[in-house]
């Protein structure tokens, strides 16, 4: 083991409150604490897992990191700079280093654009690549995710779920980002396809020296791909540690419940059959 890598992303006391409106004037009468003071840090080149059930706030964290939502408070330090304090132009530039892959491969691709336009969009926005050069780069990316140039001018509806997720990944890596946020990237896929995607992600990480923030509710997948895991429950992190430690010696009650509920494909480990 070499010396630990530096932190690429540090999240400090991040919070996102939504006002709860009501009463005659529909004024805020309280807050919903979607994310409530979350702190964690991700080392460069590692995979950090964020696990939680629906409504736990894990997706809100992802959206806050990308500034798709404005956090209510907290600091997001990416490569040493606080993203929340950056001027707009600088933020835009930084965005190139932080990309996302969404859960739903059917909704995250614009149905009116061809694969070339979808994958090429970040390139058009952040680089001077155009025309043939752009096409060439897109083909290159397609090949990196296991698709070929014959798909260049196809529309999303012509692809299967797994293929679409590959396109989504190609879009995410187009700018050679440092960090990719994977928001439940495989939970809409069948297991055989999920395995393909997980393998692809694994391969890309090694090849492109990517850092992953992997959000999921599937403990098996997290265990497989992540180095560190944080469990989040009702907007708060209840436990965070090395993956193996969490799975073998969980400390929090919630973690234990979750692990016990995880269905394992082995008839010998059934909690139901007496």
């Amino acid at each position, binding site marked *: 083991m070499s010396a630990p890598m530096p932190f690429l992303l540090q999240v400090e006391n991040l919070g996102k409150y939504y006002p709860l409106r*009501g*009463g*005659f*004037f*529909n004024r805020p009468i309280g807050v919903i604490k979607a994310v409530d003071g979350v702190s964690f840090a991700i080392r460069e080149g590692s995979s950090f897992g964020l696990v939680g059930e629906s409504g736990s706030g894990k997706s809100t964290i992802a959206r806050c990191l990308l500034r798709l939502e404005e956090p209510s408070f907290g600091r997001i330090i990416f490569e040493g700079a606080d993203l929340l304090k950056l001027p707009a132009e600088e933020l835009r530039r930084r965005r190139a280093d932080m990309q996302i892959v969404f859960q739903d491969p059917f909704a995250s691709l614009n149905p009116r654009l061809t694969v070339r336009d979808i994958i090429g969009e970040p390139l058009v926005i952040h680089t001077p690549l155009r025309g043939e050069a752009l096409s060439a780069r897109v083909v290159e990316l397609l090949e990196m995710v296991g698709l070929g140039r014959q798909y260049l001018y196809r529309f999303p509806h012509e692809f299967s779920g797994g293929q679409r997720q590959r396109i989504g990944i190609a879009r995410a890596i187009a700018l050679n980002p440092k960090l990719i946020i994977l928001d439940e990237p495989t939970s809409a896929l069948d297991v055989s396809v999920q395995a393909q995607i997980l393998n692809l992600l694994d391969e890309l990480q090694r090849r492109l020296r990517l850092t992953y923030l992997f959000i999921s509710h599937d403990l098996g997948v997290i265990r497989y791909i992540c180095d560190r895991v944080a469990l989040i429950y009702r907007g708060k992190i209840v436990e965070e540690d090395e993956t193996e430690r969490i799975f073998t010696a969980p400390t929090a009650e919630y973690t234990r419940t979750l692990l016990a509920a995880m269905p394992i494909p082995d008839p010998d480990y059934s909690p139901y059959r007496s």
Partner: protein
Amino acid sequence: MVYYLLRRVLFIIPVLFGLTLLTFTISHLVPGDPVMLVAGPQATKEEIAALAAEFGVDQPLPTQYVRYMAGLLRGDLGRSIMTRRQVADDLRLFFPATLELVLAAVSIAVLLGVPLGIFSAVARDRAPDNLIRIFSLGSISTPRFFLALLLQIVFGIILGILPLGGRFPTLQTPPPTVTGFLTLDAALARDWGALVTALRHLTLPAFALSLSMLATIIRMMRASVLEVLQQDYVLTARALGLPQPLILFKYVLKNAFISTLTVIGLYFGWLLGGSVLVETVFDWPGIGLYATNSIIALDFQPIMGVTLLIGIMFVVTNLIVDLLYGLFDPRIRYT
């Protein structure tokens, strides 16, 4: 619920305010001079000036508007320059006729359209469905005045079984006015002959008015039923052994009707305004006819009155529809 209602009512106010502003502006874009009409051909300049003062039209527009709004708050809609009557009185006189006509049309459309729409959905893509589709598209495509005239010719002239126009025979004394609806008044007075007569007069105009709404409801209902039939809970109901008629007429109907409710609400308002053509052809003494005559004479107080009244009705109907949603759909909570 009360909060919701109050807030909705509060939201209505700016809309109505804008409405008055809009109608006021448009009625004053009119290039002509309605005072001239009242003054008569031989009127002198002084007489015209006096009349203009009487109606307040000599004031600058903002002043006129403020005056109008002040009157409005007192329930005063101004006076018709042409008939010299209070617009409020005129509306009281003509509105029940229109409302009766529109309600009859809406009833026809709903009572026929809902079952036909369900039928069309159930018979999807088979001959009856296609026939109903042609019928409804054809109905939407028929100009109301054309349809009204055809109905008049066929039922009034050729067959001679229905009256050509009007609300009630000229010679007969209508039942005492209670609601302003001749049919209801007749029923209240237990004057069954008058009720039949009133219904006979109502039939053609109501039908002519209802047809496009009927067609829309059929289409809406068909689409919603088809959509609801795709829902998981319908499959569950079938899987648990409920028979198709019960599923269709209880479970599907209520869900499908909810989406049709919006159309009914919207159409109610539209028909109030759209009755113009039907009222013209059938000489139906309602606000549509009143509005047309006022517009032709560029008599703007009644135009504003009618527009405002219909606007209010429209807003109120939609409010009622919103509240009805709550009745039909428990998921909607009014907070």
